[in-house]
């Protein structure tokens, strides 16, 4: 339990009247390599503690690191996608400090010689405005192990009876992407922060270098925030909110820190340079450890590793493996699919671009693909607390369903029933429709009989329609559909009724 007295915060509008925010974002990404950064151990998530370890990642006396070439290639591809320069020659450095779950008591990282540097990422905000975030650098390093504090009520080290360390994560390759100070965002700072992380996440996913699961910690964001009084030129003191692990939290944490800083500054206080912890449940940050620029990591070039000198041929080859930038791809698809900006944004937010692309490729119309995936399926998934990928529904199923609707074999409500059958594992849409006897009645004779019967049974309503109140026909349509057990084309029913009552 963190016992904290709530910090004072200033309302957001007041913050913006008086101050300009400056942000610096540091995003750690666990690379999805099969083996660790400096040894051949597996990197799978969730294995039994300490089963994916060896003398190297345990830092045993005598063990030596060897650089994972795939991790280097991933770092270079990330750099190229972020419009960075790639170092012709760089080194690893040792960052010396004590940490209980860091087996060597130094972290092998990069210091003044990062593998890639000086780039940018264009970030599109919700209203379509594009904000350019400059990238300072991206460097390679290794992850630490994980501590588990046993006993005590909080799972924190205070009050614990003992601590256990799992070194499975120790040595997993990380790339840390560091922005330059982001200025000029004004009120949009929290939004820019979220959009940056979201855009980066999409990019890394498209690069296929990481599973970018923020909730599992394979992508984590440290947000540095400071405020400058309006008109000032000197940067304010910053705080660093560590390991924020969702897009929403990034936005909230930045906003919270802005409001907290402003309250401190307004009260005549000064900001303490420190790390902060974000609390998802309460929406506040609490003080971590003080951090000064004087933190002395005693960096020096890692003597156990030879320098990394990627050849220009390698860099050129890696450049050809870059995917289409997500922003460009989005524009291209939106235009091809004929979606409005709003529709495209819905699709993006639902994370349904890939699946819609596959569904359209399988023969569905873009409109139907969007309707099914971001409508019915998304709604059901949401209700059941699942993701659409948890269902047995494939893009081919949706395309098949759309084909049946277009051919007039199913109406909308029948199509929903068919989809339900597919979700329940009853087979393909065709198989479900056959098994459940769902097929629009094409026999005009039966339909005409039902129409005549309903007119005869409801003379009052029929007269209203005859008198010109055409909207009253709806009640009759419902009756006919009921008589037909729903297996009639509603448009056709309407047509028949109007024909009978007005001619």
């Amino acid at each position, binding site marked *: 339990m963190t016992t904290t007295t709530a910090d004072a915060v200033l309302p957001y509008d007041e913050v913006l009247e008086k101050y300009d925010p400056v942000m610096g974002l540091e995003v750690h990404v666990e690379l999805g390599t099969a083996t660790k950064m400096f040894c051949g151990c597996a990197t799978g998530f969730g294995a039994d503690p300490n089963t994916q370890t060896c003398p190297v990642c*345990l830092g045993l*006396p*005598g063990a*030596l690191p060897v650089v994972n070439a795939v991790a280097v290639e991933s770092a270079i591809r990330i750099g190229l996608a972020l419009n960075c320069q790639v170092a012709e020659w760089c080194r690893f450095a040792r960052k*010396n400090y004590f940490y209980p779950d860091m087996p060597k*008591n130094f972290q092998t990282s990069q210091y003044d010689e990062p593998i890639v540097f000086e780039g940018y990422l264009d970030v599109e905000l919700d209203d379509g405005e594009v904000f350019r975030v400059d990238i300072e650098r991206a460097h390679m390093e290794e992850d630490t192990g994980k501590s588990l504090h046993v006993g005590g009520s909080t799972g924190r080290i205070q009050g614990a009876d003992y601590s256990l360390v799992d070194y499975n994560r120790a040595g997993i390759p990380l790339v840390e992407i560091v922005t330059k100070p982001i200025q000029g965002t004004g009120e949009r700072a929290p939004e820019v922060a979220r959009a940056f992380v979201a855009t980066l996440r999409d990019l890394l996913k498209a690069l296929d270098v990481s599973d970018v699961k923020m909730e599992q910690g394979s992508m984590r964001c440290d947000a540095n925030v400071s405020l400058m009084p309006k008109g000032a030129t000197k940067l304010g003191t910053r705080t660093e909110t560590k390991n924020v692990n969702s897009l929403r939290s990034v936005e909230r944490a930045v906003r919270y820190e802005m409001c907290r800083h402003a309250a401190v500054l307004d009260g005549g206080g000064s900001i303490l340079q420190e790390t902060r912890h974000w609390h998802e449940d309460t929406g506040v940050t609490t003080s971590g450890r003080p951090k000064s620029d004087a933190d002395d990591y005693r960096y*020096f070039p890692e003597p156990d590793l030879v320098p990394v000198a990627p050849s220009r041929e390698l860099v050129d080859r890696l450049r050809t493996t870059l995917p289409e930038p997500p922003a460009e791809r989005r524009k291209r698809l939106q235009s091809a699919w004929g979606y409005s900006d709003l529709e495209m944004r819905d699709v993006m937010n639902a994370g349904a671009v890939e699946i819609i692309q596959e569904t359209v490729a399988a023969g569905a119309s873009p409109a139907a693909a969007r309707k099914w995936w971001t409508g019915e399926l998304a709604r059901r998934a949401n209700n059941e607390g699942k993701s659409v990928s948890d269902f047995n529904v494939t893009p081919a199923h949706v395309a098949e369903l759309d084909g049946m609707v277009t051919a007039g074999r199913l109406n909308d409500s029948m199509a929903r029933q068919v989809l339900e059958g597919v979700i329940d594992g009853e087979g393909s849409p065709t198989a479900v429709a056959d098994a459940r006897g769902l097929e629009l009645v094409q026999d005009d004779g039966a339909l005409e009989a039902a129409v005549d019967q309903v007119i005869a049974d409801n003379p009052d309503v029929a007269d209203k329609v005859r008198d010109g109140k055409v909207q009253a026909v709806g009640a009759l349509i419902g009756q006919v559909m009921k008589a037909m057990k729903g297996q009639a084309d509603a448009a056709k029913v309407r047509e028949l009724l109007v024909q009978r009552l007005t001619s």
Partner: protein
Amino acid sequence: MTDITRLTAAEIADRLTRKEISSVEATQAHLDRIAAVDGDVHAFLHIDSEGALAAAREVDDRRSKGEALSPLAGVPIAVKDVVATQGQPTTAGSKILEGWIPPYDATLVSRLRAAGLPILGKTNMDEFAMGSSTEHSAYGPSHNPWDLERIPGGSGGGSAAAVAAYEAPLAIGTDTGGSIRQPAAVTGTVGAKPTYGGVSRYGLIALASSLDQAGPCTRSVLDAALLHEVIGGHDPMDSTSIDAPVPPVIAAARKADIKGLRIGIVKEISGEGFQPGVQQRFEESVQLLVDRGAEVVEVSCPTFKQGLAAYYLILPSEASSNLAKFDAMRYGLRVSPEGVDSPSAEQVMAASRDAGFGDEVKRRIILGTYALSSGYYDAYYGQAQKVRTLIARDFAAAFEKADVLVSPTAPTTAFKLGDKLDDPMAMYLNDVATIPANLAGIPGLSLPSGLADEDALPAGFQILAPATRDDLMYGVGAALEAALFEKWGGPLTPPELTSATAEPTAKEALR
């Protein structure tokens, strides 16, 4: 029949091949010798009779089946205790690793095992290889077989003493600033530091990663070359390992041809400051090389003067980082601070390090931590690295004029135990001739050049060659060795060790 322990490794290998003796016999003979004399010499920290004999039996068995074996198969060996040996203790001469048994073999140990060399045990050393006398071992000093009251050199004094005392025909040493060559010089044995990266460092408990190099300790140049080929060669587990075949060192040692070779005498590492007897033996050896057809040139390496200072910044800096892992949490010694009820991890760590590290280790950790600190880095570590570059340039220029460079290996013969223990600077000066090779990463070899007149103790002759030209130094070394043996009528032999030759009281006083 000649006592097996008096034979060189090549001679033992020869008799094994001809099946005149078995590996079990050779191994047992050395174990018996260890039992007889190691109480006085204290070359070993751990003896693995069972494991060595099992390995010997296996190689005998394979030989009897007619299997193709490595040239040194069946020849026993001792390994410096800084090298990880699976299932056998490895302490690096430190209390902080007392009782630690590595779960893995160093690459060079795997290669020894694969080549069928029975491992007799682990040899004594200065704690974490910091020292030039083996007096900084947490387990007590080793003694020089030439005079048990004297140091056997350091940090690999145990390996050199074991070879000099006929306890092992071969031993593994590591050389960070001279820890193979300087002990060889003061014990009258041969020690070779290969080119940096020539032998894998995987499994060597690091002292200073950019300087450490494992290599052979033997009684002949040919033996050193034979062992070099077994342990050398590329290792994918060591990023700094050279990705090229081992130079033809055995062929060079057998050929021993120096006709027309240019021998460079480095002005800065001979003459003034060197013990007259050592200097004299050095000059006579140079003359022998000239007699055999070599040409002598004098070369100057002016930045060598700064070498010692640079070394004593780079080494502690890297060591302070390498030794950070010894935190008493996962293996080795753990000490609870006295008078603290429930100590924190930091308190346990501090108490353990206080008890587990010796004075010399603490001195260098503090020095290194300081030298790497922000604000001091550029003035110390950065400057030292620049000196290192200049030293490499000096060597490059010298190797333009000469094929190999020569000097006395150590400025003096073995000093008495305890003499320099309170004077770190005097101790550090012992490595003044050997350190430049480590800073530049080039290979170096020391072989005995005779006994100094003043004290009748061995003097060492050092041969340095350009990087990856280890074969050159073996060729010159073998030629000089042959010339000296001809002059002496055979190898130098230390006085006979009989039990209890050392004064036990003197030994106790040093612990």
